[in-house]
């Protein structure tokens, strides 16, 4: 009972208790339950799927194996690829546009407050509203496709949300190789950065890991074939419309983040740089942008977890059944509630959770470490 040392600890604990219990049950308890469900065969036997007292057997990681290497789950793998490209372009678009707007507004033009509100406003809309409006604008016969006629050009014919065209196609079997290669490259960069900063031990660790990964990628990774045949996946052009709408909605928010960061940079620093003879470009390149790095990280985390979990925007824009714009969250819904494959739906949910955790946990870890140090 040593932690009862003083009353404050006790009160603190009592105050936290309700939220701890609620979180424990409704977040972590349900995550655990979903994980356990994903290890079962719930839904494989139609007589048990929705019975009052279903007989459910543990089958280990079979559902996950099927998702990544099964014949009929090609759609899930394409969905992962879709998510990857969507996340990439969504984050790049938001950060590019947000930073641009923020820098423009930071130079205090006339009516700055007005424009700030205008750019920030889309964020206050729900994704359903945004999705519905953009669906109308991206109809093959109307909206955006009619724009060129305003200047006398023939109207566009791109099927924004339903195009079946794919670019940058690769075989699913090459994925282990590419993953190993990418992670290895990142580790190599970490190693170089560490050596430059004089942290020899860290640098050595990173470079050795990178070496091992490269070795693995070129030997075992090349030989590792999840599928017995080549299954091509790529970037669905139908996603361009979704990316447009998502960037339209969230770039204002990114702008607000950057604007806050820019305002936090003391005027003295800029003046000092100017006095030292820095041009505007050099000022941004060497003073302001490096100071905005933490903002960029936050933005990447926030936007990243939105895009990995995206459901409502796609649902409103293209519907749940439009395969070219499918994402894992939609597939999870369809698998669970339409196809009654409850365990497989849970497995998709766990894959999503792991993906989001990969983004969020390192960030939280860093934040917490930073706070403790303070």
């Amino acid at each position, binding site marked *: 009972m040593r932690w009862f040392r003083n009353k404050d600890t006790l009160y603190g604990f009592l105050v936290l208790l309700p939220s701890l219990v609620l979180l424990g049950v409704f977040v972590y308890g349900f995550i655990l339950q979903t994980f356990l469900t994903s290890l079962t065969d719930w*839904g*494989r*036997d*139609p*007589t*048990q*799927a*929705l*019975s*009052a007292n*279903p007989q459910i057997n543990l089958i280990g990681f079979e559902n996950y194996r099927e998702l990544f290497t099964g*014949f*009929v789950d*090609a*759609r899930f793998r394409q969905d992962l690829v879709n998510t990857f490209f969507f996340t990439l372009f969504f984050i790049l678009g938001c950060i590019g546009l947000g930073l641009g707007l923020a820098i423009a507004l930071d130079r205090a033009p006339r009516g700055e407050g007005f424009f700030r509100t205008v750019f920030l406003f889309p964020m206050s809309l729900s994704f359903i509203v945004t999705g519905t409006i953009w669906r109308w604008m991206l*109809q*093959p*016969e109307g909206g955006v496709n009619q724009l060129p006629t305003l200047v006398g050009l023939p109207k566009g014919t791109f*099927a924004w*949300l*339903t195009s*079946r065209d*794919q670019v940058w196609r690769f075989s699913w079997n090459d994925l282990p190789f590419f993953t190993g290669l990418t992670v290895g490259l990142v580790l190599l960069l970490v190693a170089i950065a560490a050596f430059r900063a004089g942290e020899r031990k860290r640098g050595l660790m990173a470079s050795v890991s990178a070496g091992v990964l490269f070795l693995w990628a070129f030997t075992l990774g090349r030989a590792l074939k999840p599928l017995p045949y080549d299954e091509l996946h790529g970037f669905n052009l139908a996603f361009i419309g979704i990316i447009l709408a998502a960037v339209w909605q969230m770039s204002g928010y990114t702008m607000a983040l950057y604007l806050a960061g820019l305002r936090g940079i003391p005027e003295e620093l800029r003046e000092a740089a100017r006095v030292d003879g820095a041009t505007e470009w050099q000022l941004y390149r060497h003073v302001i942008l490096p100071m905005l790095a933490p903002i960029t990280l936050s933005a990447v985390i926030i936007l990243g977890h939105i895009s990995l979990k995206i459901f409502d925007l796609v649902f409103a824009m293209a*519907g*749940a*059944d*439009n*395969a*070219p714009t499918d994402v894992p969250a939609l597939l999870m*819904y*369809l698998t669970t*509630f*339409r*196809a*009654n*494959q409850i365990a497989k739906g849970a497995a998709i949910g766990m894959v999503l959770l792991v993906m989001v955790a990969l983004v969020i946990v390192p960030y939280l870890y860093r934040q917490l470490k930073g706070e403790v140090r303070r």
Partner: protein
Amino acid sequence: MRNWLLSLVLLLGSLGMAQSGKLEIFSWWAGDEGPALQALIDLYKRRYPNVEVINATVTGGAGVNARAVLKTRMLGGDPPDSFQVHAGQELIGTWVVADRMEDLTPLFRQEGWLDKFPKGLIELISYKGKIYSVPVNIHRSNVMWYIPAKLREWGVQPPKTWAEFLTVCRTLKGKGLEAPLALGENWTQQHLWESVALGVLGAADYANLWTGKLRFTDPKAVAVWNTFGQVLDCANKDAAGLSWQQAVDRMLEGKAAFNIMGDWAAGYMTTTKGLKPGQDFGWAPAPSTAGVFMMLSDSFGLPKGVKNRTNTINWLRLLGSKEGQDTFNPLKGSIAARTDSDPSKYNAYLQSAMRDWRTNRIVGSLVHGAVAPESFMSQFGTVMEIYLSSRNAQAAANAAQAIANQVRLGQ
């Protein structure tokens, strides 16, 4: 004597009970179909004035959202007294096999319905010899729509077979009609597929596909995909972005000659567009499917453990009655499932559908839940995807068979 009295009291008591209480009806009939459901509820209220009817609707075409809500309610132990479901495997494959529904065969016997509904329909709604739902209406899936005046203008006849269809398609393309067949989004493509499959395979083999007697990888079944591909080449390229109504509109505007859609399209053209069936628009069975009626039907069942069982049975009794069906269907734009309904209440298209319903061979629709369980149906979209992106009939057939094995189709 005392026993006799006791049972009399109980009987009277239960009769009294039956007149009051509540009845919750769960359906996706909102919007256009709302008035038809309301007419049924009004009829019920006239018969049982003390029963409070709770009309729980969840919007979303074909029940896409309602079914998800229903599943959470059933799993949570809160079944509605009666719920709408597509007759056939959508009910059987999900709820009957899971032992959640009551056997309604006694009700059918009691009401003398066994010879009022066609035998083919009774087979589709039965599982192991027992009947589990009361079909309210019948829609036909395999109908080809056209504008007679336009066809005369182009000088073509409505094709009778898929081979003829492809010839007509070439002729029309030669006359500058870019896409002779109007097609819409995702599910309408699957809808087209089932008509092609029925036409290519014939009624017997089409039915065998769903009982597992004919494998999807059989050369006959693979051939369906080849024909389907050729038919798709006659369709508009922007199909995926159009709703079924917009696809019908394309045909009405003369940008396409034919549209294959269920007979709710007749309701759309008569009610919404104000066209006259038979004059402003014409119809024929989808190519190669004359003499076969591919049906889909909305039905209601009795979940186990409902709160107001007697009220629910009264509701089912009303749904299956001639009066109930003839009240509902003219408003909904469908025909009665019973074969003895009154033709004078229905329009020209529906009268012709009623004649076919009585005489044709009956098979069930895939897309609308009659012949395959939801677990197969919802993954059929993936099969379609594989075909549309690769145009490889064998790959699509393999995927269909893999899914059929996985969900134990026909077992």
